[in-house]
């Protein structure tokens, strides 16, 4: 197709502002999917996305839009849309999608107004010089205040408030206008179909039949069906099984030319062979240079991951490799724990990301897993002057070898109605945060800026913020520099043995309270054994909290007669299965959930 008749755009917004719903309407309006195949948030194809009502993965779809204009014959446009996630943890996903587009539709909920990711994603799009098409969504809501929000958008984008489209994705109001606007405003792609092939891999997933499937944007040149290809950076040869476009179901195509978006089913079975951000070219006539790829994301949060059953270690590794293909922000390295055996240290963009990875491993790969407490990466400077990043508490050297520990701080922006300033300040200061700025967005809403240790916001900060502001606040944060801090390693000892997987790095001020909480929680979780089990929390040699799990005195079914045998046998079978799932530390059986306790300590 003529490049002038192609538009590549994504939809960006704060979480829940209606991106996926707008995508639905565009898909329907262009007749891309029949009414029978249509369902809500069609592009949220993962079970997890559908269940949570949240987009996790960016996903692409090609639509053919027939533009009618007065007095002229209708013209077909190829519209390549990428729907993106809105959650703060998935900014990486958004950035990759942006790179495959010339324009971005910025959706703003007319009742909620500009929120943290509205701004964050907008800035990311502007950095790449994308054309922004702002739309006000949900004008059908009684609580919508489109005039006010339009004004805010004008202030942000310097687009006249009156020109901003007002739509309802839910009720299909002004959908045609959105398409018109995209065609009018978003420039067609620039590439040259005659040049050597350069196609950017912006996403991948693993398909059991087709091997690694790469989603690509052809930037230059032409990709025709059976040609042998080369991934430039990894220098890997690809003999594609098929190429095609997403409608959103994959449909074979014979060629993809510059400006177009589609997929290559590579047939590669080994998932390490291909990287998102790499450039695909023709093996017979390769382009000299790869396209600029993606900046690798630095994970912010780390946690240990172990199979509950050590036999499934290899399955777990396999699953992680496949998941990584589809989730470039996830990092993993092998690690071992005395308590939990062989596992991995994973890096995530945030706690929600960690939660999603956990659920995907459990569902898509049917694995039983344990995560240990999440932690940020600390910088450790040793007395000998060397320096390293500590991702696991277990790797902390002896106190005598440590010169200082530095922890990562970040800048945090919170957008909220002004009546919540008090509660927000209170929770941020409680978590060692400092106020940097307070900016009035309008008469009712403020943007608060803080500096705060990253460790303080990874666990449950977002939930607490939501709770304290009845869901009205939103936040964004950016990692900044490291600062020396009085961090200590808090160990939990069970029957005198330190349980490595339970150690955490924590600020000294919080250690005492946390130690007490961990001990009392462990006391609840560890079942009574045949002997008394002391539990202690300690910093170095100093015990700061202790409790005992009493010994079992009696554990025997008092009745078992003819009618009970099956039921009682099953009871014992369950008891035994439960025991099998426990981990042995010394001679003590510790249930797996104990290793997750630190995660749940904040919930209460």
């Amino acid at each position, binding site marked *: 197709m003529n490049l002038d008749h192609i538009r590549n755009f994504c939809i960006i917004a704060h979480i829940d502002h209606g991106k996926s719903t707008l995508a639905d309407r565009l898909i329907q309006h262009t007749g891309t999917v029949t009414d029978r195949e249509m369902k809500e948030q069609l592009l949220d194809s993962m079970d997890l996305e559908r269940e949570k009502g949240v987009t996790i993965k960016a996903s692409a779809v090609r639509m053919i839009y027939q533009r009618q204009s007065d007095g002229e014959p209708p013209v077909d446009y190829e519209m390549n849309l990428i729907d993106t996630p809105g959650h703060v943890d998935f900014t990486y996903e958004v950035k990759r999608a942006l790179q495959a587009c010339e324009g971005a539709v910025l959706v703003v909920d007319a009742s909620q107004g500009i929120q943290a990711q509205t701004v964050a994603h907008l800035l990311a799009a502007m950095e790449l010089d994308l054309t922004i098409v702002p739309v006000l969504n949900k004008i059908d809501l009684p609580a919508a205040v489109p005039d006010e929000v339009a004004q805010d958008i004008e202030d942000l984008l310097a687009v006249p408030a009156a020109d901003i489209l007002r739509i309802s994705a839910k009720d299909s109001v002004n959908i045609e206008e959105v398409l018109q606007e995209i065609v009018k405003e978003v420039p067609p792609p620039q590439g040259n179909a005659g040049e050597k092939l350069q196609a950017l891999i912006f996403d991948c997933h693993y398909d059991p039949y087709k091997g690694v499937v790469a989603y690509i944007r052809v930037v230059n040149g032409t990709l025709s069906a059976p040609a042998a290809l080369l991934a430039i950076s990894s220098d890997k040869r690809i003999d594609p099984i098929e190429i095609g476009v997403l409608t959103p179901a994959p449909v074979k195509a014979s060629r993809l030319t510059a400006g177009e978006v589609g997929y290559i089913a590579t047939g590669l079975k080994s998932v390490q062979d291909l990287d998102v951000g790499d450039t695909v070219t023709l093996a017979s006539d390769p382009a000299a240079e790869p396209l600029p790829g993606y900046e690798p994301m630095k994970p912010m949060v780390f946690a240990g991951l172990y199979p509950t059953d050590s036999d499934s270690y290899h399955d777990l590794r396999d699953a992680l490799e496949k998941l990584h293909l589809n989730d470039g922000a996830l990092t993993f390295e092998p690690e071992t724990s005395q308590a939990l055996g062989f596992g991995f240290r994973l890096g995530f963009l945030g706690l929600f990301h960690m939660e999603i990875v956990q659920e995907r491993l459990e569902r898509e790969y049917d694995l039983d897993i344990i995560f240990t407490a999440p932690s940020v990466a600390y910088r450790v400077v040793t007395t000998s002057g060397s320096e390293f990043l500590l991702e696991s508490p277990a790797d902390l050297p002896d106190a005598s070898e440590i010169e200082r520990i530095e922890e990562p701080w970040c800048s945090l922006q919170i957008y909220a109605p002004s009546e919540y300033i008090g509660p927000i300040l209170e929770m941020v200061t409680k978590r060692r945060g400092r106020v940097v700025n307070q900016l009035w967005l309008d008469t009712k809403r403020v943007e608060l800026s803080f500096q705060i240790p990253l460790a303080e916001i990874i666990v449950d900060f977002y939930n607490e913020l939501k709770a304290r502001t009845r869901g009205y606040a939103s936040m964004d944060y950016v990692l900044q520099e490291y600062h020396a801090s009085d961090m200590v390693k808090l160990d939990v000892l069970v029957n005198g043995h330190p349980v490595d997987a339970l150690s955490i790095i924590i600020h000294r001020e919080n250690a005492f309270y946390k130690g007490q909480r961990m001990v009392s929680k462990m006391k609840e979780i560890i079942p009574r054994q*045949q002997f008394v089990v002391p539990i202690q929390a300690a910093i170095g040699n100093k015990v700061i909290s202790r409790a005992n799990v*009493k010994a*079992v*005195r*009696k*554990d*025997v*079914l*008092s*009745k*078992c*007669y*003819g*009618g009970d*045998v*099956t039921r*009682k*046998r099953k009871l*014992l*079978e369950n*008891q*035994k299965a439960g*025991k099998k799932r426990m981990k042995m530390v010394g001679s003590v059986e510790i249930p797996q959930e104990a290793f997750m306790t630190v995660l749940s300590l904040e919930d209460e």
Partner: protein
Amino acid sequence: MSFLFTSCAPKERRLKANDRLGWIAAAGEGPLGLYIHIPFCARKCPYCDFNTYARLDPLYEAYTQALCREMGRWAARLDGRTVDTVFLGGGTPTVLSSGQLGRILQQVHERFKLAGGAEISSEANPGIEDQGQFALLRRLGVNRLSMGVQSFQAAELEFLGRIHDAEDALRAYDAALEAGFANINLDFMFGLPRQSVEAWNDSLDIALDLAPRHLSLYSLIVEPETPLAHWVETGQSPAPDDDVAAEMYEVAISRLREAGYEQYEVSNWVQGAGFACRHNLLYWRNQEWIGVGPGAHSHLRYPAGSEGASTGERSFPFGGACEGVTGSDAPAAAVRWSNVKGVQGYIRRVEADESPVSFHEALPAEVSMGETMMLGLRLVREGVPFARFEAMHGQPLRAAFGPSLDRLHDGGLLESDGERVRLTPRGLLVGNRVFSEFVA
């Protein structure tokens, strides 16, 4: 294909004369028990999860008839095989009229071939008109009576929702003696919420004064979906305290020993040889019994070398796939099944000549061996004799469970005198940890 499997083979519901299950039942050579369930009580106790119902008086007559009918069928299938023990349980059998009780027991005597000196037990609860009933039971050949006394403390009886007080229990015990019962068991419960060790000792004092031949002492279990469970969940009652219950159990063990009782099972004591409940011993020895009435369970072993002791479909005398079936691939060593729980459903099916069975499982050899251990180890003195295990399962106990036996022995939970393996006193207190070693 047998008539048994209503839930999985509706078309096969009609009774057939020469069914395989009947053949297995008739072929067995060991002792056989007959359990007769009476699913009625004057009032439902709030902790009780037995299959028993209050206020079903209008069904007594129809039920008696259905029960006799089911017994008649079994008698025919057993084809003259001797029945060694009969247990009339529930429920409270004595809520039935003397006419109804009479018909049930008459059916037992007339249709089954009872062994000479067969043990015939009945359960009873104080608080209902019993003098006449006890005498009747005696006349009908019942030679063992088991009474639910539970406690002699007014507050505890109230909490347990019992319909009787301590006086009623004493009167009932006297009535049983008067009726001529020499073999009487009294049931007690301990570890009740708020029960003190003194109060427990007090009940034990009175019980020991009465000096029954047999005592059953049960630690209260909060069974799910009972009113008691609801009270505990909602904080209307504290949960039983395990440590206090443990202390009461230990107190009981030592006091009964001093009083000359022998603890022959986890919760059962006997004074004098020959008074252990022979019917219950069948359960603990993993032997065979037929249960009749709603919710009643049955258990039969495949005769060694029989066609039944093979894999796949042939291990199911019932055919087809049925809910509750386990181990369908492995050779079956035994089979267990149970009847529908509802009284009306039971009556309807039996009267329509349909099978009342609603659950069955074929037990592969390993599962059956595990059951032999989990049941047999409950017998504190007898334990699991090596010889009997081998005769029953065709392989030595050590071959089946050597490593587990060693581990438990080293942990001080099991002991052996060369003829048997049994729990140590410490193993008795944590029996579940021992039993669970032997299940899947």
